[in-house]
């Protein structure tokens, strides 16, 4: 540059590159810095790789919405042959684990202490009731109402056992006129793991996208490095993109890892294409990162940032996305709120891509909604971020 003829006002003209609003090399310098920091920070590994694995394991094994081996008591007060065979029918099912008893007082105490979820009483006069022409209640079913789902299950299932037992006794002729044979699409065994694991990926992505972004920006404010970078010619757009790009890549890697874990370890089928999965994840990262950025533009403190990210990102993604609790079962007002939660669209698409296949009729509205929410977050964050320290 020294070869250039000195302009009349060299002293007052800033360098050409330096005054540019967007400079690829400055951006790359920021990206490299952020990547180095992320790689050296043990918490990155923890959040991006260990946490997803733990979450997936939890949702795959520890959390199960399926009812299996429910512990109940069967109180056999009658010694009749029919009563004996009904008791045997209860013991024979794989959905119940039966504790036999002769006296209801034995099992009642265990229901109180929570060891049993309920008990069935086969009364002393069972044979007489069975023989009676007037239909009479055959059994008494007592369940633990403090766990409503299980209680309903025990009650219904007890009824089913009795019906099956009655059918087999009467020689196989169905009692009801119409027999229903339900078939569950996409998840024939109704294994909750298959729906939960894809949903868990949405949670993982929310943590990486929103929580980590909010934290790393707040950290720069706390350590005073933001001030130093802002006093250089780097522009706000460069600083923001430089922050987001590495976490975008990290989020995609974590998705791939989680998907591999889901498919290979938890045997969740991937019926759609990897391309669709990656497209969905990439678009979901727009609102996730945008939200993280927005949080960090509101607070410059790591503790506060993590709290806000928890309440505005993680919890809605967990509770309102339909991943764990069905949206259709929610009251109308809450259901309305779920439309603002980007994870809702991601969960719906994730479950589709894993369990159904590439259904673009589902994906396209979901993608559009995620992109729209994301762009809104970015627009607000950008308008709130100035290249100075004014709050």
């Amino acid at each position: 540059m020294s070869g250039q003829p000195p302009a009349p006002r060299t002293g007052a003209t800033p360098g050409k590159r330096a005054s540019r609003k967007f400079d690829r090399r400055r951006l790359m310098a920021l990206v490299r810095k952020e990547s180095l920091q992320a790689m050296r920070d043990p918490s990155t590994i923890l959040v991006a790789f260990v946490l997803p694995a733990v979450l997936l394991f939890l949702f795959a094994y520890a959390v199960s919405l399926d009812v299996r081996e429910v512990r109940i008591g069967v109180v056999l007060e009658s010694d009749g042959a029919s009563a004996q065979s009904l008791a045997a029918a209860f013991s024979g099912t794989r959905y119940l684990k039966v504790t036999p008893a002769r006296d209801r007082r034995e099992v009642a105490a265990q229901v109180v202490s929570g060891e049993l979820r309920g008990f069935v009483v086969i009364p002393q006069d069972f044979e007489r009731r069975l023989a009676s022409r007037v239909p009479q209640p055959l059994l008494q079913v007592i369940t633990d109402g403090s766990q409503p789902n299980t209680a309903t299950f025990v009650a219904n299932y007890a009824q089913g056992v009795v019906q099956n037992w009655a059918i087999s006794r009467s020689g196989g002729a169905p009692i009801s006129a119409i027999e229903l044979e339900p078939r569950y699409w996409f998840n024939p065994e109704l294994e909750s793991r298959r729906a939960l694991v894809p949903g868990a990926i949405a949670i993982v992505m929310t943590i990486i996208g929103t929580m980590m972004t909010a934290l790393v920006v707040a950290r720069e404010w706390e350590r005073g490095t933001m001030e130093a970078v802002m006093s250089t010619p780097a522009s706000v757009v460069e600083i923001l993109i430089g922050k987001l790009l590495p976490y975008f890549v990290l989020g995609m890697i974590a998705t791939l890892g989680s998907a591999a874990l889901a498919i290979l370890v938890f045997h969740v089928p991937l019926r759609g294409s990897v391309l669709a999965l990656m497209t969905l994840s990439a678009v979901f990262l727009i609102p996730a990162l945008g939200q993280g950025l927005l949080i960090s533009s509101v607070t410059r403190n790591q503790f506060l940032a993590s709290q806000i990210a928890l309440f505005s990102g993680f919890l809605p993604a967990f509770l309102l996305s339909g991943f764990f609790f069905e949206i259709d079962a929610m009251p109308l007002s809450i259901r309305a709120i779920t439309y603002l939660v980007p994870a809702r669209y991601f969960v719906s698409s994730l479950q589709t891509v894993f369990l159904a296949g590439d259904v673009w009729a589902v994906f396209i509205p979901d993608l559009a909604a995620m992109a729209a929410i994301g762009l809104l977050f970015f627009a607000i964050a950008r308008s709130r971020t100035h290249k100075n320290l004014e709050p």
Partner: protein
Amino acid sequence: MSTTAGGRVTNDLAGHEMSTRPTPDSGRTPDQDVAVVIDNVTKQFGEVEALRGLSAGIRYGRLTGLVRPDGAGKTTLMRIMTGLLVPDGGHVTLAGFDVVRDNDAIHIASGYMPQRFGLYEDLSVMENLRLYAQLRGLDADQHGDLFASLLDFTRLGPFTMRLAGKLSGGMKQKLGLACALMARPRVLLLDEPSVGVDPVSRQDLWRMVQALTDDGMAVVWLTAYLDEAERCECVLLLNEGRLEFDGPPQELTGRLKQRSFRLTGAGDERRTLLSRALDLASVGDGVIQGDAVRVVLRQDVLREEIDTLAGSVGATVEPVQPRFEDAFIDLLGGGPGGTSALAERMEPVELDSDIAVSCRNLTRRFGDFTATDNVSFEVRKGEIFGLLGPNGAGKSTTFKMLCGLQKPTEGGAQVVGHDLRRATGAAKGRLGYMAQKFSLYGLLSVRQNLEFSAGVYGLDGATRRSRVNEMIETFDLQQYLGTSPDSLPLGFKQRLALACALMHRPPVLFLDEPTSGVDPITRREFWTHINGLARKGVTVMVTTHFMDEAEYCDRVAMMYNARLIALDTPDALKRDSRSDRHPDPTMEDAFIDLVESAEGRDQAGMDAKGAA
């Protein structure tokens, strides 16, 4: 570029379209030497007026000190100059660019080192340098010479691979400076560059800044230390958002001709002498300086009163050179009086033993890092004992072990006869502790803070009420009882913290960095109380990194690299370091001298080991 002929630091960058001195710009010749023009700038944060109509100029080729002796909000003006804050009113131009309208240009023309240096701690020295070079539009590979010269200039060459977080305070500061110097700024802005840096590194920084200003750069040095201001070529002195003084520091001190005196020969009576001197109408300010008392007379008064007072205790009066701090206090209308209402009320302390605090072979290790290494000393009753050293020297760890907040790895300590290992509770009941930054409860009112500390030391019923009321009266806290300590003026905050620490009348008082971030006038009031307490027989242990504050102490223990490198009276320490270079050394000179000889001994020891 031959006109500016870049200096040793960045001459290879000379062609980078920037010269240090601006070329005349549209006929504004009178301003051509002015790097920064501050024109009637105001800035408000909520209720607080940080700047109230400030106007000043900063010139090229000079070191300008931006001095605001209290901690609050002094970064505001500097942040406005770097374009990081927008002034509410008025204008600032830097190198000819308006900081608001030409914000982008400001970031090119200026180099800025924020507090704590703005370094990425998990990046290495070289990675930090490369990042800032690239952000400023330089290609690290093409500017190898520049890197080499910066590394040479800052003497960081051997540490390029080390993570910035693992550097010492002084090395961080040099790296921060190197990052700010990338792309050769015309104006260099340094925000409290010497905080957290040992005196030896501070010397290095002065040397580097000197080289830069000789080269024509404008350097602004923000500081709370008045002794640093004295070394600047030009000073902007801010107080409560207004410019109190703008000019060379000598001009301000020059106003004090024949008004600064040293009273020597009072010996053990020097605290009484200072107290009485400060109560004289003709004395505006006074401090203890080792064995002597230093006073500054008010404007247009005679030295008669002070002569009489000195005569009555057999001290001699001699005129001395005024210091910048004298001038500053004078500018603000003098310091507080010499009587401590607190000490007046205290009963004299009686102890069984003459030794109040002692420790033997005190050692504390954290993993393979030794924070305190084999420290032993004894503190007599009624003594003011200073623990002096730069950040990280181990004084806080030593201090915490002495007040039972941390267990020593080896060795032991006693406070008024209680062993801190076995009778920690009993020992703690006999000492008062004032933590750094005062540590008051912001969510409790002033009264609740007082009552809490009374309760926590086990006072109740009538004693508690009377003690709390006594503190309120002594420290004049009545008007603030319902407010939060956070909203108190600094001086009152300090009084409250002292009141809380003294609630149970402890014979030993521990003060951890009591005066950092505190303005000189509040500091004087604080020392008035401490002097008063010492006269009543209270033993005071104090840590400080203000070298001149060590002068108040009876004895000073100097710590460096976890070890005690010297222990003596301030005067003896200064006397021992007297040399041709420093015929009248300050405490800081003495400290640097001691550190250098300690390092020399280390080196010799290692060489001896190597030879054997």
